[in-house]
């Protein structure tokens, strides 16, 4: 069974602070995705990383895929209240596999 461990589980920070969320596994993934889910809504895809060592930026969000494609991180600079939500990482096995392995998520609260 492949697992994706996310840490921390909960994070409460003040507006303007920086934070990093981690997603770790002992398994190799062909790609890894990050989603954000707001309360009462479905997850929304933020980014997909594919290549080991890849870094992608989405405004104040920076996503990195580990060199060995077993782990990933999400860094948010100068967090805003609008960043509040559940952040989920999900790994794909590759060709022939339809499923994703999801982490349990990091619940972020940004206090104004």
């Amino acid at each position, binding site marked *: 069974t492949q697992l994706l461990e996310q840490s921390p589980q909960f994070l409460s920070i003040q507006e303007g602070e920086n934070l990093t969320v981690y997603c770790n596994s002992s398994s190799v993934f062909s790609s890894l*995705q990050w989603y954000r889910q707001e309360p009462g809504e479905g*997850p929304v*895809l933020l980014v997909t990383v594919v290549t080991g060592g890849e870094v992608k930026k989405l405004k104040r969000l920076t996503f990195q895929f580990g060199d060995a494609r077993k782990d990933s991180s999400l860094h948010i600079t100068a967090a805003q209240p609008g960043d509040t939500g559940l952040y989920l990482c999900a790994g794909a096995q590759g060709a022939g596999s339809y*499923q994703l392995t999801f982490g*349990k998520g990091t619940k972020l609260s940004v206090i104004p």
Partner: protein
Amino acid sequence: DVKVTQSSRYLVKRTGEKVFLECVQDMDHENMFWYRQDPGLGLRLIYFSYDVKMKEKGDIPEGYSVSREKKERFSLILESASTNQTSMYLCASSSEGLSSYNEQFFGPGTRLTVL
């Protein structure tokens, strides 16, 4: 704009009732999925389908069945609802195209309460 819609946002049912949750996607995706999401347990896959009339069990299929008669529509059926099926139900779809990385697109979810 990609779109996955679910028939209800909130649903309240009684124990023993038959419950239908419907999901429609307009992206011509081959794959469709049903998950439930519970605090502390994350997203758990119930069933998925990779083609019309095809279905595969996920991690927690007990107490559920599914139907996929058309490519765009995937239904989740609770034959006899029980209180432990109270949960948030999420439908998702994904493409099998060469440029796909198995990214899934989710509907808004159905919050089901079984009394």
